[in-house]
């Protein structure tokens, strides 16, 4: 067994300070500390409060990655403070670290934010099992290991908000449910005991708030401290919309399905044809940019598309391997 040596290094911290009751603008306090390889981000928050400034405020409780209270941003990255080691942070960002709340515009005091929007969206997706439970069962409601696997660990979410406040769409579109709510919705949609039928899916299909506004940036997967992988759940929910017949024809669903039409016809995409199929009459709004692109040789007419070689193979595979209908 190798001996475990504790190393120390000097780290400079820039720490966000703001008291919504008193301050007009936030400011940053600077600290330089010797940090050991044993410490996690939460230890530094504690040291700032205990050794430097008792008024410094942050949420903490379990210290074991379960309660989800202590998520903050370190150099812009959502980070569960009790989980991430200082070594990891220094590896990621170097020895100048910036501590900020998960969302600056929602800051109440220092690291503490108002998570109201997070909880509203969490509540909006019916985050509970909807089922007619027999209150006097004669035997257990058995769930097989294979059925439990279907949750894909979505049940590990601790509602820390790391993904929600890392999501660029949440910042722009206040109706958007966000990755945490989506992962939670999946957790119940994938549960064999759940009987909500299309209740959640119909709401998840709605534009602006729903799945179709996800930009597929993978920021949520990157920051989740429990490896819930929300984007994977978002993709699975998209597939469920089609599988359960909830998906109605709109620009986003036609866009997804349009890829198949294009592939079966050309192997490759017919970009113009895809936009036309997706938008329908709405294509007119693209005409000004499209004309400029045409002039610059960036639009190929349908008859000019170089189709994939061995297109017959592709047609055959599309026929034999399709699993979805629209």
């Amino acid at each position: 067994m190798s001996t475990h040596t504790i190393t120390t290094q000097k780290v400079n911290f820039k720490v966000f300070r703001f008291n919504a009751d008193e301050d007009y603008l936030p400011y940053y306090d600077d600290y330089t500390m010797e940090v050991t390889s044993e410490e996690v981000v939460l230890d530094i928050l504690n040291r700032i409060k205990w050794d430097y400034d008792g008024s410094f405020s942050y949420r903490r409780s379990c210290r074991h990655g379960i309660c989800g209270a202590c998520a903050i941003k370190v150099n812009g990255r959502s980070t569960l403070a009790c989980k991430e080691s200082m070594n990891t942070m220094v590896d990621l960002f170097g020895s100048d670290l910036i501590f900020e709340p998960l969302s600056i515009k929602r800051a109440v005091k220092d690291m503490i934010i108002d998570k109201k929007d997070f909880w509203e969206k969490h509540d909006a997706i019916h985050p509970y099992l909807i089922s007619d439970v027999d209150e006097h069962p004669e035997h257990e409601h058995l769930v097989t290991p294979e059925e439990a696997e279907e949750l894909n660990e979505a049940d590990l979410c601790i509602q820390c908000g790391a993904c929600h406040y890392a999501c660029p769409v949440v910042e722009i579109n206040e109706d958007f449910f966000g990755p945490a709510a989506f992962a939670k919705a999946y957790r119940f949609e994938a549960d064999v005991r759940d009987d909500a039928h299309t209740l959640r899916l119909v709401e998840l299909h709605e534009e602006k708030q729903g799945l179709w506004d996800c930009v597929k940036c993978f920021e949520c997967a990157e920051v989740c401290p429990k490896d819930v992988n929300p984007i994977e759940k978002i993709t699975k929910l998209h597939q469920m919309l089609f599988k359960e017949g909830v998906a109605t024809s709109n620009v986003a669903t036609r866009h997804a399905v349009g890829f198949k039409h294009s592939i079966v016809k050309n192997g490759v995409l017919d970009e113009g044809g895809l936009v036309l199929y997706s938008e329908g009459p709405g294509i007119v709004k693209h005409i000004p940019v499209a004309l400029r692109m045409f002039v610059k040789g960036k639009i190929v007419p349908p008859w000019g598309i170089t189709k994939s070689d061995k297109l017959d193979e592709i047609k055959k595979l599309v026929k034999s391997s399709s699993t979805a209908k629209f």
Partner: protein
Amino acid sequence: MKKLKYALFTGCTAKQSTPEQMMSTLAVADKLGIELVELTEASCCGASHLQDYDDFLSLVLNARNIAYAEKHGLTMVTICNTCQLNTAMTKHRLDTNAALKAKVNEKLKEVGLEYQGTSMVTHFLYAIIDDFGLDKIKEMVVTPLSQFNIAPFYGCHNIRPSELQNETHKKPESAYRPTSLDDLIIACGGKNVDYAEKNKCCGFHVELQAPRTAAILTGNAIAGAMDNNADWMVTPCPLCHLKLDTQTGHASEAIGREVALPVLHMQQMLGLALGCSAEQLGLKHHLTKVNFV
């Protein structure tokens, strides 16, 4: 050094909305003495949208594309971040799930193909850095880009999810502090610009259904580069390129500020440094004029 040879998965945009990307890829490969065997049999990768509709079909189609690279016994290089994501994700899922791989191969057998998992899938940017080497690039630069501040725009699907980084190239990079594109800028003699949006999303994938979101993300990216004194931007992703180059009108309107910068594909930047001509690199195909060449 042994001559480098790859199977090229061009993706769809290189043949349609970003012809300059195809031209510059070939021009740069020629300068570097890299042989590219184009996978003309390949289909579209599904761009993560087919994946929302029919997961299994998208796996089969991507596995077929990789199978053709395997037939050549070559590493597959992509020139689009989203092609890279969908192809590498297919490989990841098939290589880690024997049952799924068998199911996909059952379909591929119908057309006489088999996915084995023997070809690596990497982006041309990473192939150049890992296999060709930046030191050699530096030696070959004939027109150093030393008068330019160049803003790298990485594009989500090359750097996230980071679990694919280990599998797609030799020197995995951080999604938070990526360096590949910065390193290439420096190797070309340019000055790399640091800005907060360099590893953020351009909004491409919701352009049709959420145009405001898409336009704000594009606007923020260009504004971030402009505010840090970038002369122009560079990206390895043609989809990011389409957003940043062709959507400046919508982006400016969305963020309430005029934004526009010339945006080059990483192949075009490298090509300029290696002495390729503007014609070879297709610089005339841009909507935001490349005004410095």
